[in-house]
């Protein structure tokens, strides 16, 4: 497997984490209740922290400093799926996204923990422990709210329906899928997707939410190849606003 392929993999993971962590941090001080405000913030910090871990791996492979990579690229240079860049919306959407994304992330890190590249496996091992708690948090809330009353149930179902096409975009195949599989890096996006469908179905059933037939949902692709919604560039402009006052300065 080429270094180019490995970088492609690491970039998409790092970018997903950074953008979703950034989005979820927008709830800080604005959460529906203090306890949840605090919980959401710590998960957002974990996400931004894990993006840093992956940008650091990339830096070790010869890419620029994490700050430079994160704070100076424009939207077309980002490889995150479109799902993570969508605005936070109402809390039901943010929760559903957190649920759908972190379930995928947990499987990804579990698989990468077995990766023959020691440095990657190390990071994945550490992060799968972290994400396990995020998934537990998401499962609890999804079940609790969806089963609570009609209002909450309706909100959760609507967000789920809206989110699913984007969520499938997480698994947009890379041009290097076969290289990863052959080199035993990880079993590839299709494998994550299959396991993910299984895992989320179980929780969604317990939550009393209806999962549409998979073949009726069209995945939103493009993010992995730098094609983004109109929401990413404004997010990046905001994120880099201060840094770009003087990118060479020490802040």
């Amino acid at each position, binding site marked *: 497997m080429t270094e180019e392929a490995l970088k492609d993999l690491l970039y998409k993971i790092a970018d997903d984490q950074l953008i979703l962590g*950034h989005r979820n*941090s*927008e709830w*800080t*001080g*604005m*959460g*529906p*209740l*203090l*306890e*949840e*405000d*605090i919980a959401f*913030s*710590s998960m*957002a*910090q974990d996400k*931004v*922290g894990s993006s*840093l871990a992956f940008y650091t791996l990339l830096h070790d492979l010869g890419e620029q400093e*994490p*700050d430079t990579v*994160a*704070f100076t690229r424009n939207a077309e240079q980002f490889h995150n799926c479109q799902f993570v860049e969508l605005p936070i919306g*109402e*809390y039901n959407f943010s929760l559903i996204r957190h649920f759908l994304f972190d379930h995928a992330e947990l499987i990804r890190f579990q698989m990468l923990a077995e990766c023959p590249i020691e440095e990657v496996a190390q990071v994945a091992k550490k992060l799968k422990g972290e994400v396990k708690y995020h998934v537990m948090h998401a499962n609890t809330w999804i079940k*609790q*709210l*969806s*089963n*609570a*009353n*009609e*209002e*909450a*149930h309706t*909100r959760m179902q609507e967000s789920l329906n809206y989110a699913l096409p984007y969520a499938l975009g997480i698994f947009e195949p890379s041009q290097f899928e076969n290289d990863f599989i052959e080199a035993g890096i990880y079993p590839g996006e299709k494998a994550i997707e299959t396991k993910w469908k299984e895992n989320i179905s179980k929780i969604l059933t317990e939550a*009393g*939410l*209806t999962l549409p037939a998979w073949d009726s949902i069209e995945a939103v692709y493009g993010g992995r190849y730098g094609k983004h919604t109109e929401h990413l560039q404004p*997010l990046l402009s*905001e*994120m880099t*606003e*201060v*840094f770009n*006052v*003087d990118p060479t*300065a*020490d*802040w």
Partner: protein
Amino acid sequence: MYGGGQVFEPSSTNNDLLKDEDPKKLAEFEARIARGEKIEPKDWMPKLYRKQLIRMIEQHGHSEIIGALPEGTWITRAPGFKRKLALMAKVQDEVGHAQLLYGAAETLGKSREQMIQDLITGKSKYSNIFNYPTFTWADSCFISWLVDAGAIVNQLANARGSYGPYCRALDRICAEESFHLKYGHHCVIHLATGTPKQREMMQEAVNRWWAPMMHFFGPSDKISTHTEILTKWKVKMATNDECRQQFLDMYVPKIWELGLTIPDENLKRNEQTGEWEFTEPDWEEFKRVINGDGPCNKERLAVRRTAEERGAWVRRALASKTKGEEYVAPMA
């Protein structure tokens, strides 16, 4: 974060509340406080004590949650990973402080819902300093360092007070505040010793924030309402002027050390008295802002109100859950 200069009950209310207390119980209560004992939620306490403490702790809690807003808006713009992660953690702490403080106030009989209701309707106050805007990154750095520093001065004093749950909350809060102070100080050092643009940014922030910072500790003791009984009951542990002096003594030299100037030509330490002298802050402006007419009062409350409204369905759902009315989804 936390502001000084709390608004206490007017003394007329004080006298009304005090006059029908059982003198024997009152004397025992005061003796306990004089011995340095802590008062706990189930202990007998004068109605006025309860009322003042609720007011004070509630205002403190509100200051934390409203204080999360001016800094919170910089989380999405913090320059670089280190700052972004630290600021996220700091603002999260402030929200955690609100949670702790509302919990302490609840032990006195007022529910969190009621407190938040009183906040968003403008009935209860919060620290005046958060009614000023953070225009630049440097403003948020000023808050993280110096407003938190001011808060620590207040909180350390109050942590020696008489109400057990409040003191314990403050002990935990102060431990976290020292991390905030370090973070804020580092941010300011980097700007003040950075590029010309960064230095200018920082100096402008100091110029903007100095007056609100002087207001932070509340009106001068010469003009503020009498609080003797609150001092005796160890509700108020240091006067506004004492806190302000302590802050100036600890931080003015540190600000000057960084080559920053403070926009008050009369500010100096009197070597004979050891006291800081300064231009008398504009207390009319302070009053105007605390009564709702500051640059950001409306916006801060509107943001908080919106957050409450947008989250109401979640709280309704949780409430219906605890009542056991589990929703059963209709079969598809």
